[in-house]
């Protein structure tokens, strides 16, 4: 789980077919930079490509991110 203010790179998305494609379409590609603006017990506000998204807890844990 990434702390607030931290930036990371999307490594993989462990989600089912439709959901994974959906996330990629919204900009969560492998290699995309993600900044965590808020982390609240698992639920996140992140910025990808300058777009801000709210992610529920369940979804946030499916997106694997590495330090960069």
């Amino acid at each position, binding site marked *: 789980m990434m702390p607030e203010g931290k930036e990371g790179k999307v490594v993989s998305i462990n989600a089912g077919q439709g959901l994974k494609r959906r996330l*990629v*379409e919204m900009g969560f590609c492998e290699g995309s930079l993600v900044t965590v603006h808020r982390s609240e017990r698992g639920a996140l506000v992140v910025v990808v490509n*300058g777009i801000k*998204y*709210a992610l*529920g807890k369940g979804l946030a844990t499916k997106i694997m991110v590495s330090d960069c």
Partner: protein
Amino acid sequence: MEKKKITIALAGNPNVGKTTLFNAITGARQHVGNWPGVTVEKKTGKRTYKDTEIEVVDLPGTYSLTAYSLDEVVARDYVVEEIPDVVVQIVDATNLERNLYLTTQLMELGSKVVIALNMWDLAESRGDKIDTRKMEDFLEIPVVKTVANRAEGIDALLEEVVREVDKGEHHEHEVSYGDDIEKKIIELEGIVGKDSALSGKYPVRWLSVKLLDGDENILEKIEGSSVATQVNSVLSTIKKDDYEAAMAEKRYETINTVLPQICVKCVNEVTFSDMIDRAVTNKYLGIPIFLAMMWAAFEVTFTVATPLMEFVDMFFGWLAGVVAQSITNPVLGSLLGDGIIAGVGSVMIFLPNILLLFLMISLLEDSGYMARAAFVMDKLMYKIGLNGGSFIPLLMGFGCNVPAIMATRTIEDEKERLVTILVNPFISCGARLPVYLMLAGAFFGRNAGTVIFGIYILGIIVAILSAKLIRGTVVKGKPSPFIMELPPYRLPTLKASAIHMWEKGSIYLKKAGTIILAGVVFVWLLSAIPAPGVDAAFASEEILGTEDSLIGVLGHIIEPLVAPLGFDWKVAVALVFGFIAKEIVIGSMGVLYGTGEDEDALAEILTAGAMTPLTALGLMVFTLLYVPCIACVGVVKKETGSWKWTLFMMVYGTALAWIAAFLIYRIGTAIGWGL
């Protein structure tokens, strides 16, 4: 000369200004908000530009041509199946990368596309430099700069649209997916091309790409075709999961190679929006801020409205005076005075409250806060088996449940959508507000505001508990993943919010002038007809609204049903007619108690013995929970597509209402309160 007719569709990501542009082109006044999912149904309008008659279709926002939720299906189906002459894609200039993703899909489909580069002034003001000439060269698509909210660039856009139609040539653009995927595409093209029904309607390459994409809609089309087995045997050789995401990523790669050449800078920075978000999404502050905003909105609808209500009151008082003086025919006088003015007047007096309520909701919608509220509430929603996405439709229910239930189309998960629809009527809509205002005002004096706030809270609690109950029993399942774009805040302009308020307010006025008017006239008519065996003239003083009228007889028939709740036959009748529209509960009480237009007179009669604070509270709770109005029932049927669920909702709500009012009455009586 015969005018040329063309159809254009406005497509684009959510919240890029499609509806604003639609309004700017057609002069319509469709509702615009600042949250993803404002438009859930396609809307059409007309515009004549030079010698061309243009039909403009505003589509719900979508991130791609693969649909996940119902509103996206509407958009996808229109572009793919109806094939408009030109698709105008509205591209948010501050957000090129993701917007161009949809462009690549439209290009692959072979749609004729014109890009409206919207909000480019915002992009420019933060230092982006977008080279539209290069953009046109790379994409081979005309690009027109627009600022929809100031109606800039509209003519240039239409000019380009007309030119694009006249051009006639049609080329499909390709995204290159790399050797491995391309091989599969070619293989599939060979197979799909053999089915002339399919290849006649859709580009073959596009079909093949979509199959590898795992697009369910296209897979279904193939299932029913002559090449189903062959296609499936090819698809069975690949690992679907890998392909889907890989292809989406390839599209992004294509965009990313082009992007640096057409746009300099183009990165978002920490902004004003981020600062607000630090507070409103805070772990500890998020929910208190939300509640404080609700409370403030609530206060405004009451305190500011009070002096305005005097004006409405004066108007109806004056009107009643004019009628009393000038109409000599007793029947007509009674119809106007005891029927229409009493009935409609008792509803209309609350117009200021309703307008302010709508203004508050408009401010909330236009600012961009809605999506944040969804985030803040996600955890609570998760606990009841839904996700934050269900929260916006619930919040909208405070205005009117009908559009709120339509708004559930943005919810991807079918079961979650169903549950959100079923509990939505418990969120107290604007039409129920007059009932509370009247009763609480009469019986609870200075505490009226608190009592009404309590009723709203009760509605929310019942909605939440019902959702949990339904989700745990008849519609089981885990909450689906929650993801929602948080759009940048925009300062709502007073003008836009006022227009928005007026639009909803005028619906209320129209309702008062039609359905409520008809309802109260009908109630008056029934109360003016003498009961069988009663020797009195039609609409004579001594029977009007009494047990000697026809309505009295009918009321007494249904009275036993609500007698255990402490309601008399007049309340019973009012509740029955409240099914037409909830305001009629008050309107028909105005007629039945024969109080004329004067709100205070009705309050006096009620407090003088017709009701007690206890039964008034019971009636408020009953009105909150029992079967929603006919328009709401209609939309529940339409959106669930099921009479079974619609009936379930009606019976469940009414049963709850009965039980709650019964408990209030019995417990209150037992402890000797409010007698």
